[in-house]
């Protein structure tokens, strides 16, 4: 009797048991004897010199144990690390965890209080006096790069951190005499990642040994970086990521608060805890996106792309954090999307502003690029009066052309854009909705219907170490797994991936159960603690399954190889004659002569009778470094009803057909797609970190920063095609970011499509009712003055 295969089964999640009963171990839940509470005083101004600090009042407050300023910590706090120097001459300013002389964004820490409880710590902040001498705010990237602009870092002499350029093919030839040239300027607004669990850190010091709990995605990287910054030896520092309530890139960071908590535990000899409030986090958690894109696309009159020019200004914020400068560079490889073209250039300038630093946010560089190209494809379609799907068909890589070397230097291993698109258009009832759109246009319906297309791919599974090296990234892209076979035959899987909602405990158990032929319930997955899982590269960039899952697969194969030898010994057969299936080793042709993995495991544990030179352990490790990225893709279609009188947008239908290769757990995959869609749609319609001209963040609370609720989102129709990755034995591709990457342009394309008869060629994100209404009113006059923007006017008739 063989059990149903675990891989591919919609297992309900193991981790749910604690999450639905309130038995979760969030960092803020941790209590230690003598625990002290930490609070940070933060700059209320965007840019100023600190001319006076008086903490004496705070020190006298009841319950206060200690107060430190940046100057007090200066000899130990170091500078927060940037691990991605994208160019040799990149401008990399010092970044003290607590500001010493100057503050450069609202929310930057300026002092820290340690008290007996969190209320006392918060009270004491109000008794600290800081004198600020105002310096000019730098809030506009296009102004900031001009000669003579006010500077964020006056000692650096420039606001440009770096310029990074990639060129391929003959762009001049592509644009020379091109029948169609489209030029656009798009703004990727700043976003606040908003994981539901605010950041929290607990740190304890016992002698020379430190334990730091943090709500982090990256316990392993954090350990190394904290050791580097503070000088505490790496082997004396244990980092634990307990249950972590979401990350979306925001917890892929080495935060000043983590460094400071470590130093406080060291100085005070007492454990400390810091938990941020949401309003604090909106200012101090790194932001995402923040780009101005200038795009030029040259095409033939039949819609075939000749070349694409990309010119970006990427908002770094005030400092370069862990991978800040590299995020927009990831987009360099994705602006060409799924399309064939011979010439391409990408130029990106990283620009300092007096705003919260930016860094990874779900998709990290690829949503920005995908937005750019997918919006341009719709503009090209409008210019040529072609259906947006048709113009894509004329340009995309066909399924028989894989593996395909793209103009940006990647090799896409597999994909089938035709199949995904066919399925999506059928589910969407594309032709029917186009007919309804035409009807509403003919009737002059104040509520217009728009159809948005996004045929995307993305590079994930970060990443082949040699590629990261060629991009000057500071680490490799491997992942580690080990499999422990316990004497009773139960299995412990240890992974270097660090789940924070993704469901690794379930999916990894499915992989191990499947490979080793043991019951799912016999596998336990351990992660997120550098003492339990000593090697890891953690979780981000949709890498866990495509890299860490493959490491686990390889570790299982090693266990089987070891056990096979032992089984041959026990069965007195030749190793070559031993077959393994369903958790049992048998002699080929003599199935009744068999030993289960459990029996072999117990025999190895006893170690009384081992093959010659056999080490008495079946435990195995594997470290997997992928040969290539993984390239999930899909076709997303969005139908939006746009009220031209109120500007209100209602998403009526959203169809997402994703191809993420082979699937370990379809339930988890669907959940990842749903959540990704919500975040991408939120960028299109709702969210923006807004700064005023003085550099004040005006969206510090959830009342101002509009994370969508259940009532703000539609019901999605999701489906899959399955084109296995050819670069790993599981055939898997990443799925964590796909929904976010694909959905933003699908929504905006739908809105613009609805409004083309009004001369609208763009609506800036987020497409709030006010902005949509403004676009309807001003669309024709304002937009037609832009170079190359004539398509919107002429194309209305060709849409139906």
């Amino acid at each position: 009797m063989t059990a149903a295969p675990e891989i591919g089964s919609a297992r309900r999640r193991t981790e749910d048991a604690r999450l639905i009963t309130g038995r979760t171990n969030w960092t803020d839940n941790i209590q230690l004897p003598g625990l002290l509470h930490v609070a940070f005083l933060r700059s209320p101004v965007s840019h100023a010199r600190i001319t006076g600090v008086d903490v004496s009042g705070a020190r006298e407050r009841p319950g206060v144990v200690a107060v430190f300023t940046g100057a007090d910590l200066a000899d130990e706090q170091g500078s927060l690390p940037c691990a991605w120097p994208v160019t040799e001459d990149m401008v990399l300013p010092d970044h003290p965890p607590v500001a010493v002389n100057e503050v450069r964004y609202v929310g930057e820490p300026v002092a820290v209080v340690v008290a007996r409880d969190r209320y006392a710590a918060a009270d004491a902040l109000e008794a600290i006096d800081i004198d600020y001498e105002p310096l000019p705010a730098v809030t506009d990237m296009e102004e900031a790069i001009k000669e003579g602009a006010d500077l964020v870092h006056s000692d650096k002499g420039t606001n440009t951190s770096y310029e990074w350029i990639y060129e391929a093919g003959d762009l001049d030839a592509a644009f020379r005499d091109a029948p169609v040239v489209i030029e656009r300027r798009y703004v990727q607004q700043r976003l606040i990642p908003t994981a539901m669990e605010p950041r929290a850190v607990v740190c304890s010091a016992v002698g020379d040994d430190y334990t730091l709990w943090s709500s982090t995605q990256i316990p392993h990287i954090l350990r190394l970086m904290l050791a580097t910054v503070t000088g505490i030896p790496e082997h004396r520092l244990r980092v634990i990521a307990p249950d972590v309530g979401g990350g979306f890139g925001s917890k892929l960071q080495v935060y000043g608060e983590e460094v400071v908590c470590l130093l406080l535990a060291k100085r005070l000899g007492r454990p400390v805890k810091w938990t941020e409030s949401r309003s604090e986090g909106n200012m101090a958690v790194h932001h995402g996106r923040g780009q101005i894109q200038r795009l030029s696309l040259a095409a033939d009159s039949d819609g075939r792309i000749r070349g694409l020019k990309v010119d970006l200004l990427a908002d770094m914020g005030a400092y370069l954090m862990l991978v800040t400068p590299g995020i927009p560079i990831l987009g360099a490889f994705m602006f060409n999307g799924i399309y064939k073209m011979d010439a391409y250039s990408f130029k990106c300038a990283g620009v300092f502003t007096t705003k919260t630093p930016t860094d990874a946010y779900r998709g990290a560089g690829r949503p920005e690029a995908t937005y750019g190209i997918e919006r341009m494809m719709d503009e090209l379609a409008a210019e040529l009066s072609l259906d947006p799907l048709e113009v894509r068909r004329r340009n995309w890589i066909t399924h028989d052309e894989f593996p395909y070397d793209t103009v940006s230097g990647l090799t896409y291993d597999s994909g089938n854009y035709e199949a995904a698109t066919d399925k999506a258009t059928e589910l969407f009832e594309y032709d029917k909705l186009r007919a309804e759109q035409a009807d509403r246009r003919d009737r002059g319906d104040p509520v217009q219907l728009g159809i948005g297309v996004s045929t995307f791919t993305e590079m994930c599974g970060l990443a082949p170490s040699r590629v990261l090296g060629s991009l000057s990234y500071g680490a490799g892209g491997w992942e580690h797994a080990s499999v422990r076979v316990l004497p009773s035959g139960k299995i412990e899987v240890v992974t270097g991936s660090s789940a924070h909602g993704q469901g690794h405990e379930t999916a990894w158990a499915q992989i191990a159960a499947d490979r080793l032929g043991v019951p799912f319930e016999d596998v336990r997955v351990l992660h997120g603690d550098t003492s339990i899982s000593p090697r890891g590269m953690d979780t981000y960039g949709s890498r866990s399954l495509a890299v860490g899952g493959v490491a686990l697969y390889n570790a299982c194969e090693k266990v089987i190889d070891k056990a096979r030898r032992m089984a041959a010994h026990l069965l007195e057969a030749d190793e070559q004659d031993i077959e393994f299936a369903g958790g049992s080793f048998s002699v080929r042709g003599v199935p009744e002569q068999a030993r289960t993995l459990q029996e072999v495991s117990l025999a190895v544990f006893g170690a009384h009778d081992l093959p010659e030179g056999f080490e008495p352990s079946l435990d195995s490790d594997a470290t997997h470094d992928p040969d290539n990225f993984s390239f999930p893709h899909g076709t997303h279609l969005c139908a939006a009803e746009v009220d031209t009188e109120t500007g209100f947008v209602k998403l009526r239908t959203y169809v997402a057909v994703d191809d993420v290769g082979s699937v370990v757990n379809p339930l988890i995959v669907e959940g990842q797609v749903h959540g990704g869609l919500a975040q991408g749609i939120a960028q299109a319609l709702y969210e923006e970190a807004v700064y005023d001209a003085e550099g004040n963040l005006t969206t510090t609370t959830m009342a101002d920063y509009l994370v969508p609720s259940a009532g703000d989102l539609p019901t999605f129709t999701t489906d899959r095609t399955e084109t296995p990755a050819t670069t790993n034995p599981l055939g898997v591709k990443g799925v964590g970011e796909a929904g976010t990457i694909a959905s933003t342009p699908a929504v905006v394309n739908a809105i613009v499509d609805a409004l083309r008869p009004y001369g609208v060629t763009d609506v800036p994100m987020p497409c709030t009712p006010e902005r949509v209404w403004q676009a309807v009113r001003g669309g024709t006059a304002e937009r037609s003055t832009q170079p190359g923007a004539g398509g919107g006017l002429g194309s209305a008739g060709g849409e139906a």
Partner: protein
Amino acid sequence: MPRVSVEVDGVEYDDDVEPRLLLAHYLRDRLGKVGTPIGCDTSNCGACTVLLSTGRRASGTTSVSVKSCSVLAVQADGKSVTTIEGLSDGQELHPMQQAFHEEHALQCGYCTPGMIMAAIDLLRENPNPSEEEVREGLEGNLCRCTGYQNIVRAVRRAAGDMRSPAEEGVTS
């Protein structure tokens, strides 16, 4: 300091508290009821939602959902609080918990305790909500992971499970 007497998940507590102490912090920091998390400071996210009896004690009064970050501990004096930790008897899950599990209505799980408590209160007011009514009814609870679709499914599934078979017979 005022003294409060509160029943939480069936256990009586008597404590001296600062008048300004939030119920959420009282539950978490004083009672160790850390199953109820805090996600914001403006009562927007709903992660800290618990059920609070409208009258003194649970018996004979209704329990309604409140955001425990916007209730003072002293306001709970004499009342009964049910948190996520008190929903299940340790043997069997509450139908709402079971439905969240079955429908994959959670990922990171941080919003889940509040979402489940709010959903239970929603069904108290409307035992058979439409999809639209569930979406509107849960607008005070934010989730960043799921896109809400499976939460909506779970709440409607639980609604079906919680209606008595007789009732089911009448409505179908």
